[in-house]
């Protein structure tokens, strides 16, 4: 019996190639799109899965409350890891790790910056890093040792047989290579090419020894039997047991959640990237449903062609169940053919998609999970797509269909078909509106006035003796004619790293801690960045003359709340240190580009500066200017490669997730509308065919081609119109909610809806009009005779 079904299905497909193509191509596009999304989702869900101890690994998080609001940080005290291992039961292992350091490694005349971390050697066993050469137990036996990735070993030595060889770091120390580890996969939270003993970093940063100073990350491995609640209960007051003044409340946070649940609001876990994983999974299914709807609509629309077959089979003894299984079987054949085509589409589209999402996803059909997933998608699509047509076709009355009578258009079938078109177009319109609003929001943020001029501004890490030779470098740079000004700072302006709650001023509630960002800068900083002074003055060029003076931002000034703040005092460390406010600058945006500026103090202090900021003159040829800057820097520090970053480029990179969402929603809306239009094209063709006689008669009676094309298009356009009415409120609600997550956001304007609706109508009209005009220009004599 199944052989007979297969034959009928294939011969039907062969005979109706356009129909077959529309169905298979539409469904294949949907399956391919869903497959790409699911590959992305799989990559996100399996983040850090390559670490065998993933279920027992945690990072220590740090909740600090300022002025009633709790902020969650990853920074912990340097003394925490060894102490908590010995004092808190259930902790099997701990390791400290720096934020990530970019160091210059040199071998002969080869000098390359490489990203890595200073870590405790326990991390090797905690992450179960695979040593290709050397071993974990004695990798850090000597102080200046380094474990490098295979990639880095190949880059410097062209081999992994490098134990005992040395690499010069930052043109200062020779580090001995004591291990080569297998490169980590892309989807892990750790991105390093080298690991060096934490002791080196600790010796250089003695402030780490204080319990009140948070500056590194602490990782924890627990015993399988550990009571996590007990560990967290102990950690809650742990810092206070060492330093009663400290504001930190610690807790451990599982590796399983690092990637997708890393958002905290007021100290409480509040989702994270998981919302995009969920959103895209839903979109994948929606696109599959749109593709399945095509199948249903085309199958029921062309039911007349199958009616006689249904009649004959019924007369021959086929029951309704048998016919339903036949038609569902046909849908399954179609969906499996589509799945095969989808594999080809995915293989073709994957490199582009990888570029879009910045991942290295692979189709990898040897992975049983991928095969099973594809099979499941194809099967589910077949069942969904086949169920309604099967139900509809198998319910034909053989008496009617065998008489050769036209099946009266079943009112409910027509209603369902129209309803399904409305569903398809509503989804497409929602996606179009969503895409427009996402792009508008991204552009809104990108166009935001930051409070300084981000164009023509470059920053670079200070290397070698650049800090000591700053004045001479500055003069040389300015005398190139391309540079307007140069300044130093602890951090680069988009990401200011230090903050503290121990400042006070007259009138401040002593029980309230207010978190204030602190930034050490050279006197040229404000003018180099192009920030505006609101009151008072800039720092003196002679930094010593301002040794106890500070400049605050407007936001802090508002917080202090007094007028004429210039000349007032701010104290620190219980009043031991006093600073005079000499200037107030306009707020500028840093760290969180969506929020307003947080309170900030600029210190004229270059003790811990790491960055050189260079402002180019307006309308300077940047390529020429950079060459001149390189020349100056190379003259002063010939041992370092010239590396720099433009602030505006780094600024745009901050919106990686939003830009990705924008691009993906663009792709998904385009696909949704294309798939919907494939269906509409098929439906329009069948409608034109059904109404051939009517068109012929109307034409004979004098209807023009335009009037006929309009007549045929009208019904479909009505459906798209209804779709707009359905889509607009849903889209408004969804996008309104999405925008609420951004403090700095656009208002949704009515034209977004108008434009999306018009776009959908235009695309639909384009699709239908081909069939409508074709039917309208046909010779009426022919169409009437054919009746």
């Amino acid at each position, binding site marked *: 019996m199944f052989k007979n079904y297969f034959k009928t299905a294939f011969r039907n497909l062969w005979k109706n190639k356009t129909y077959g193509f529309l169905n298979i191509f539409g469904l294949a596009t949907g399956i391919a799109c869903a497959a790409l999304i699911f590959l992305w989702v799989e990559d996100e869900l399996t983040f850090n899965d390559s670490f065998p101890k993933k279920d027992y690994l945690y990072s220590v998080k740090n909740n600090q409350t300022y002025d009633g609001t709790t902020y969650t940080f990853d920074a912990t005290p340097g003394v925490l890891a060894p102490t908590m291992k010995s004092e808190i039961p259930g902790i099997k292992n701990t390791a400290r790790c720096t934020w990530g350091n970019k160091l210059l490694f040199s071998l002969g005349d080869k000098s390359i910056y490489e990203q890595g971390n200073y870590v405790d050697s326990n991390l090797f066993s905690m992450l179960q890093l695979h040593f290709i050469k050397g071993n974990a137990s004695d990798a850090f036996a000597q102080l200046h040792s380094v474990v490098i990735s295979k990639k880095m070993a190949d880059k410097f030595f062209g081999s992994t047989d490098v134990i005992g060889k040395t690499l010069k770091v930052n043109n200062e120390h020779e580090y001995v290579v004591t291990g080569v580890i297998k490169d980590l996969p892309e989807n892990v939270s750790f991105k390093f090419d080298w690991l060096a003993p934490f002791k080196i970093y600790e010796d250089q940063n003695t402030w780490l020894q204080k319990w009140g100073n948070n500056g590194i990350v602490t990782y924890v491995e627990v015993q399988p039997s550990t009571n996590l609640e007990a560990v967290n209960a102990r950690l809650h007051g742990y810092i206070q047991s060492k330093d009663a003044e400290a504001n930190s409340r610690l807790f451990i946070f599982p590796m399983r959640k690092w990637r997708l649940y890393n958002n905290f609001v007021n100290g409480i876990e509040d989702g994270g990237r998981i919302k995009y994983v969920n959103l895209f999974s839903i979109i994948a299914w929606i696109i599959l449903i749109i593709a399945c709807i095509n199948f249903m609509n085309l199958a029921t629309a062309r039911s007349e062609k199958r009616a006689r077959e249904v009649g*004959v089979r019924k007369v021959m003894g086929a029951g309704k169940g048998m016919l339903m299984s036949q038609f569902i079987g046909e849908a399954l054949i179609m969906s499996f053919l589509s799945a095969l085509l989808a594999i080809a589409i995915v293989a073709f589209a994957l490199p582009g998609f990888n570029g879009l999402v910045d991942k290295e996803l692979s189709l990898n059909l040897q992975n049983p999970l991928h095969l099973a997933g594809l099979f499941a998608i194809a099967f589910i699509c077949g069942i969904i797509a086949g169920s309604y047509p099967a139900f509809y076709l198998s319910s034909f009355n053989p008496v009617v269909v065998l008489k050769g009578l036209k099946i009266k258009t079943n009112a409910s079938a027509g209603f369902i078909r129209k309803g399904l078109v409305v569903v398809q177009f509503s989804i497409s319109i929602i996606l179009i509106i969503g895409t427009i609003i996402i792009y508008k929001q991204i552009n809104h943020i990108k166009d935001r006035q930051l409070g300084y001029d981000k164009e023509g501004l470059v920053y670079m890490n200070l290397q070698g003796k650049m800090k000591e030779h700053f004045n001479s470098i500055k003069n040389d740079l300015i005398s190139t004619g391309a540079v307007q000004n140069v300044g130093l700072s602890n951090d680069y302006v988009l990401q200011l790293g230090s903050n503290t709650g121990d400042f006070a001023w007259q009138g401040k509630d002593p029980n309230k801690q207010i978190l204030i960002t602190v930034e050490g800068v050279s006197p040229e900083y404000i003018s180099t960045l192009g920030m505006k002074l609101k009151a008072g003055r800039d720092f003196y060029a002679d930094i010593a003359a301002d040794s106890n003076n500070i400049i605050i931002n407007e936001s802090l000034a508002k917080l202090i709340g007094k007028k004429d703040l210039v000349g007032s005092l701010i104290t620190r460390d219980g009043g031991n240190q006093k600073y005079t406010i000499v200037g107030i600058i306009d707020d500028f945006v840093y760290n969180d580009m969506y929020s307003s500026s947080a309170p900030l103090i600029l210190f004229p202090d270059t003790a811990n500066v790491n960055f050189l900021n260079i402002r180019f003159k307006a309308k300077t040829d940047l390529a020429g200017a950079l060459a001149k800057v390189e020349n100056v820097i190379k003259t002063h520090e010939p041992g370092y490669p010239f590396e720099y970053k433009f602030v505006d480029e780094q600024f745009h990179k901050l919106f990686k997730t939003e830009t990705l969402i924008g691009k993906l929603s663009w792709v998904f809306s385009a696909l949704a509308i294309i798939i919907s239009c494939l269906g509409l094209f098929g439906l329009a063709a069948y409608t034109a065919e059904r109404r051939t006689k009517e068109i012929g008669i109307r034409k004979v009676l004098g209807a023009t081609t335009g009037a006929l094309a309009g007549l045929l298009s009208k019904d479909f356009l009505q459906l798209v119109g209804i779709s707009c009415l359905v889509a607009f409120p849903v889209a408004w609600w969804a996008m309104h909610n999405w925008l609420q997550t951004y403090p700095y956001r656009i208002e949704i304007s009515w034209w977004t809806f108008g434009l999306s609706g018009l776009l959908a109508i235009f695309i639909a009209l384009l699709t239908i009009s081909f069939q409508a005009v074709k039917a309208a220009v046909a010779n009426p004599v022919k169409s009437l005779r054919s009746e």
Partner: protein
Amino acid sequence: MIRIKNLEKIYRTEDVETVALNKLTFEVKEGEFVAVMGPSGCGKSTLLNILGLLDDPDDGSFLFNGIEVAKFNERKRAELRKRNIGFVFQSFNLIDELTVFENVELPLIYLGIKAPERKQRVEAVLDKMQIMHRRNHYPQQLSGGQQQRVAVARAVVNNPKLILADEPTGNLDSSNGNEVMALLTDLNEQGTTIVMVTHSEHDARYSHRIIRMLDGQTVTENIMV
């Protein structure tokens, strides 16, 4: 074999009520060849659909081989139909996507007969109908007469007790029509009961008895000599 009594079938739309069968009563004995005649709209086709268990009456009794089937549900009707009744239609109603062999094979598939036996039975009937040489052709590749012979082959392949023919020669020229009538006569002589609806007096003469209908009722019955 067939005994119907006071059979009623009424078609209703919102405005109109059409009586298709009006307390119709008659009988067909096993081995009979009965022709049903009458003007368009007299209820012939409705009668044939009910006899073929494709449709159910609104009222009255229908005994098929002594079993009351008037109130059978669709599943039971389908079961009885596929084992006992063969159909021949005016417009042949062959499935375009299936070959001659596959079309004839169809009733046997639904009866659950295994492939080797199906092949043997289909080939036997195609041979008998003299269309064996066309077994791998599709319906569109055959003449009308050949198509109707395939339809007859399909109707008899499961050895039904009853064949219902709805104007079997309506779409054929006289020569092909005569051939089909000869086939039906032959089947009847071998014991198959036949009820045939026709407009053709010529075809009706092949039967044993002609029932003439008007407005859903029998008006006369002629026994053929």
